[in-house]
């Protein structure tokens, strides 16, 4: 089995860098997944993430993750609109998100397969 960051997206700038986010990997994944659907500012991001994941990102956590993602070049800020600044996923961010989600899917597939064979289907 490939290593945790060993397959999809390798070689692309920024690919597989979400693992380096430590405890911010969760918020970072949610933010990148939200921005994969289009540009959003802080509040719109919070609402979108809550809608598709049920997780409400608190303001401090959201901006801590945003500033780290921006520092890593995984997202970029656009021109400010009425004091609210939208963010956009970069190509490196898209590659990093794809690599991270592929890793997550592999883990999920293994878990589900083992559950099905040992615990039956629910």
């Amino acid at each position, binding site marked *: 089995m490939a290593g945790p960051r060993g397959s999809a997206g390798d070689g692309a700038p920024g690919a597989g860098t979400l693992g380096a986010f430590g405890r911010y990997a969760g918020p970072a994944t949610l933010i990148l997944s939200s921005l994969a659907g289009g540009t959003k500012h*802080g*509040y719109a991001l919070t609402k979108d993430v809550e809608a598709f994941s049920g997780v409400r990102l*608190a*303001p*401090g*956590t959201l901006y801590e993750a945003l500033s780290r993602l921006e*520092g890593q070049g995984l997202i970029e800020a656009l021109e*400010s609109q009425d004091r*609210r*600044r939208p963010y956009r996923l970069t190509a490196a961010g898209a590659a990093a998100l794809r690599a991270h989600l592929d890793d997550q899917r592999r883990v999920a597939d293994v878990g589900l397969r083992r559950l099905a064979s040992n615990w039956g289907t629910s």
Partner: protein
Amino acid sequence: MTASREASARRAARLLRWYPAPWRARYGDEFAELLIAEFAEQPRSWRRAADVARGGVIARLTRAGLTGHRLEPAEQVRAGLATAACALAAFLAPGIAMWAQLTIGWDWAPPAAGGATIAMVTMTAAAALLAVLALLAAAPLAWSAARSLRRRPARRALRGPALLAAVGTAVLAVGSHHFQNAWPGTGAHPWAQPGLVPAGVAAFSWAATLSVSAYWAHPAALAAFPAAEIAWMAVSPAALIIAVTGVAGLVRRLDLSPRILRYEAWLASSAGAAMAVFLAGACCWVLVAGSGPGLFHAGAIDVGSLAVMLLALSMAQRATGLARKSAPGSRPQ
């Protein structure tokens, strides 16, 4: 603007104070807008307030070069060096106060306990090494600052910290020189017998760290001190903080060459090693030989000093480790 939006904006501005100024300049407006929208949805939430406070503290630690995130390499080195300078000052204030107490004790009579002798020699050697390292670190910084201050664009940014560093250092030096006359050691001769260090150095160090004193917990005894000495006990830590703030500001703002950054990062990690040796000596005295008579007896303030020194050392180690890793030309780890 409606009254409720105005109140929300004020609340958001208060919460934003947790964050450092450069962070506020970059994210302040949009973060305040988000908070205002959150207030409208959920007016009160201690979890949200705690999250913002935590985020602000992390942003400040990041700016101090202690989290290893997001800063570009040269900025990370400068931040690490500035934090290491602050940590060194926080380490040396209680450390030198402790050492000065032992120096006075030694000048009256050398310690009977072997542990105290080992501790004293270790601390003296480490303090001398730290003094040499500080001079070696200060020389290129002073040179770079003097050169930059001659150029108009850099002058505006450097004037403030340079002034703070100069005023703080001058007050500390002049005041310590004045108050060293009250040194309770055997003084008067250039090399106190049978002391380990010249009486002038011992007296100056004692006067500079007079504020680190158990007398603060005994106001009645403190009131018996001359008023000028009590005033100095209040002024000297303020002067130290001003001087260190100025030096840290200079390090943050000076445009240092990659070579100087590498050199300073190397000196900072050497200073970290010397601090560890000093702390080992201090621990040897407080924990092993601190039951001696008179000034060789370790009190609660010395245990507290050890805790402060340990904290400062760990902060310095973390900052210098990240600075060395980010120094231009350093080998990737």
